[in-house]
């Protein structure tokens, strides 16, 4: 009985040691502050943790005013989607979303964007009294990047310096968001 148990445990540890698959890169969590996107589309790349120029096709999502587009789908306006991206909206705390559900991704077409526009429909609500844009609490955007990797993000603010309470409605168009990016191709979970 003792021998058998010992043998079993040895087998498991042996198998683990012999795993030759390359070590996976860690998921990356980051916060991006004040991307100004009220004049034209600004393209963002999760792997580079930064915006990329309008000449680059290596973008994952792009912002223009309150509209967010994704680099995937048949849409041609305002420019063609050359990547393999996708996006879906879900509800929860960012930490609640443990993996990307690959069955849920939508892409941009000229008739409908993956992320629906308009107050209350997509990521924000517009308050008609204070004229402010507020990210809807509990909205998490799950993104397939242009090269088929996954990220989840929460938009924190649409105003410069992400104030807790918006006092200057004219400082709009500044995206602050935080996200988790899974850099390993084909891995849908957002854990290491």
């Amino acid at each position, binding site marked *: 009985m003792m021998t058998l148990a010992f043998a079993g445990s040895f087998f498991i540890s042996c198998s683990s040691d012999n795993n030759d698959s390359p070590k996976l890169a860690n998921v990356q969590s980051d916060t991006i502050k004040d991307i100004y996107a009220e004049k034209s589309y600004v393209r963002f790349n999760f792997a580079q943790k930064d915006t990329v120029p309008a000449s680059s096709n290596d973008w994952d999502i792009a912002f223009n005013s309150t509209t967010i587009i994704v680099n995937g789908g048949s849409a041609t306006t305002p420019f063609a989607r050359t990547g393999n991206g996708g996006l879906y909206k879900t*509800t*929860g*705390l*960012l930490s609640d979303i443990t993996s990307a559900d690959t069955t849920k991704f939508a892409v941009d077409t000229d008739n409908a964007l993956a992320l629906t526009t*308009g*107050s*209350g*429909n997509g990521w*924000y*609500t*517009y*308050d*008609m009294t204070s004229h402010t844009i*507020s*990210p*809807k*609490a*509990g*909205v998490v955007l799950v993104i397939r990047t242009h090269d088929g990797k996954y990220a989840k993000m*929460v938009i*924190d*603010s649409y105003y410069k310096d*992400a104030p*807790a309470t918006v006092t200057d409605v004219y400082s709009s168009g500044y995206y602050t968001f935080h996200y988790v990016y899974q850099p390993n191709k084909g891995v849908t979970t957002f854990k290491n």
Partner: protein
Amino acid sequence: MMLRPEMRFIYNPIKDQQISAGFGYDYETLNRSDFTTKAYYRSQFAYLQLESKPIGGIDILAGLRYDHHNIYGHQWSPKLGLHYKLNNHLSLLSSIGYGFKAPDFRQLYLDFTNAGVGYTVLGSYVAATQLAIMQKNRQIQQLASGINGDYALKPEHSINVNIGAQWNPASNIHIEANVFYNHLKDMIDTRTIAYKTNGQSVYSYYNIDKVHTQGIEANATWNITSCLQVTAGYQLLYAINDSAANAFKHGQVYAREGNTIIKLKKSDYFGLAERSRHTANIKVYYTIPKWHTDLNIRAIYRSKYGMYDTNGDGYIDDKDTFVPGYTIVYVAVNKEIDKHIIVSAGADNLFNYTSKKSISDMPGRIGYGKLTINF
């Protein structure tokens, strides 16, 4: 045009038994500028009511009402009430009833734009066509969230339960208290359906699937002297949209605290918009017979309430911005000069309560003088 004939019969077969019955017809048609289409409203109703006092102190009331409506079909509404007089000072009351309320004329056909402020109210029957016209005229900035073009209005059904007591501790004091529970299906309420380019809203009516309201009502009257009367009233109210309460219970509602996102709990749900948890009033009437003068002071209080969802989660919850609670005081004096002439003076909102931020349409103090002449 409105036609509303009604017949009523009362019959006492034996002592302490009464049967009353009646039937009627309601025909309304309107062709007004703010009702866009010629509107008809035809309904018939009949009712039967039995009142019986089987043994001392007990009074039973049983009723049945039948409604037929040209749009909303027919409905039977039974009701049962029990009144038990324990002694000369104390009675217990309870009732259970089924209610039916078809949408009224305004809720169906109204097409009204407030000339001064600029908001619009549309009846459910005309909402789609009028909204399309306003969109064509570029009066609409955008539709409110969740508006999908379906404005049809169903009748409201309810079950109402009341248990209460009436108490006269002295001949000049009367106190009554009542616990109520109402379950409503397809409750008719107002909502914003679109935002106009002038910054105002377009309102219409809609059904809330399931609502229950529960609470306590209490009223007291004290005739201190033959010239001085004080009345007071209080209501505790929980007005709960059942599907909203469920969403909170299952942790499907989120809110923002500064830049952190939190999951709201069941206890964070406040209830329907524009309903205060507490309302109270106190009124003092004082008459001076030899001067033919009477004086009255009324104070009306309501606790905080949510005007609309301010934090974008679709519900009124504890993280919303509320209209703070307030009290409004009214005073009035009436003097009868002679049998035909009454002079009145008074002030509404005596302490000039206003809240520009939360209730922009609340007028401040209004003083008035009035001369009434009866020929």
